[in-house]
């Protein structure tokens, strides 16, 4: 599936919920189910510090795709992180750079990506794109 198809799937999943409580319950569930980041990566260098919640992000580049691992200490953020990994992890730099996480807006949680929110999410997306940019440069150079 393309990034866009997965985003659409997520949007459809959430579309069923009228009540915000259900939406957030799902996020919390996703957060709870998420595999924790390998402890060796839960270190300060991988920390994206929002003012309120923290996000750890680790990445590996292999055979043209980037695999991300991540975690947050806040569950709602963690749920959103899980969704972000679902669409961005295992993708080529090009795919990552070409798509925006529009699903967050469309499932009605836009505020969580606001630059004034400082929960670490926006910074995480930026960081993922930066990695993608770096790897893209490396790969074009190597070709």
């Amino acid at each position: 599936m393309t990034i866009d198809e997965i985003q659409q799937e997520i949007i459809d999943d959430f579309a069923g919920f009228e009540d915000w409580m259900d939406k957030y319950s799902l996020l919390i569930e996703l957060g709870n189910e998420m595999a924790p980041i390998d402890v060796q990566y839960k270190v300060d260098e991988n920390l994206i510090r929002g003012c309120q919640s923290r996000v750890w992000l680790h990445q590996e580049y292999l055979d043209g795709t980037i695999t991300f691992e991540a975690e947050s200490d806040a569950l709602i953020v963690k749920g959103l992180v899980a969704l972000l990994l679902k669409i961005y992890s295992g993708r080529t730099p090009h795919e990552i750079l070409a798509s925006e996480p529009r699903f967050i807006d469309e499932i009605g949680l836009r505020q969580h990506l606001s630059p004034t929110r400082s929960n670490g999410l926006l910074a995480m997306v930026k960081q993922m794109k930066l990695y993608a940019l770096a790897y893209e440069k490396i790969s074009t150079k190597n070709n």
Partner: protein
Amino acid sequence: MSFDLLKIRKDFPILDQKVNGKALVYLDNAATSQRPVQVIERMNEFSLKTNGNIHRATHTFANKTTEAFEQAREIVRSYLNATESAEVIFTSGTTESINLVAHSFGDAFIHEGDEVIVTEMEHHANIVPWQMMCERKGAKLKVIPFNEKGELSMDALDSLITGKTKIIAVTHVSNVLGTLNPIATIIEKAHLKNIPVLIDGAQGAPHFQIDVQALDCDFYTFSGHKIYGPTGIGVLYGKRKWLDQMPPFLGGGEMIDRVTFGKTTFNEIPYKFEAGTPNYVGAIGLGAAIEYIQSHDHSVVLKHEQNLLQFATKKLKTINGLTIYGEASKKAGVLSFNIEGIHPFDLGTLLDQLGIAVRTGRLCADPVMDHFSVENMVRSSFSFYNTLEEVEVFYQALIRLKTMF
């Protein structure tokens, strides 16, 4: 002098709103309080009818504005019961007030090897300026710890004071723990050794009556926006004997007597410390806010605020896994807590969905977070316009949200 909660809430139309489809419950008063229409109207009147830059003017608007500005100073003087209005300096807020003292008192009186005492429960605004000053001067910052109830250790204070202590800076009320500190005792102890005391009144002035003469404190600071007044205005009260000896902090218009490139001489207090065009509309608004406060019977207001705190404390204590931070015997209406297994950010986000505004995070008090070994807290804080029903709604919301985790 009356206390009619319904009538009071009419003065704060902002409270009568829906947020996310639910009736607003505003419990973030320690961050910033709401402003009554009386304050807004007073400022509008000035801005739209008589605005002129203050001081040194010959025209009517400038004179009227100057009079209103100086009258606001007099209102603050009387609220604090300061000896003279020259001891009341308008700043942009508590943070600037404390920085002014740290710089100016520091320059005049603090030398290498000297010591400054603060407490473990200070807001960053009453830590960082002193740290920066101590670094500049080669002085040492010492810290009075608090116990598990959130009360300062008076014994520690006794042993921290030395012949090198030059100033003690203590918060009137902790913005995290709610603790109402025994500032009179601290001042008394300090004065025995001739050490001046600065009180950070950001959380004190909005709720407690202050008599700087009775307290005998050397400096007292607070912010307009936390005391039902506007943003961008604050107060530094200082005893004349200190202010007269302290060098100016910011340079510019109004604070000077005569400027030449060779030598500049300075004006008298309070002007010496009010460089540039002050926030005169803000000061006038702050004056209106204090007059508004004074139009209510303070003992009744205080009692109501204490009721809110006690009711909230009692209710929240029944919630399983909930830890309250700060249970001093004397507290203001601040209630910080965590619920086991729920991140404050999550709780704050969900409460907001229910129309309830609380603050979450580190509350500008990292040392308090470290004390309790937590990363964040949830803080609810009450003002006299809050109702017991709102506290009940808040409690019910916590119960409901807890089931989501």
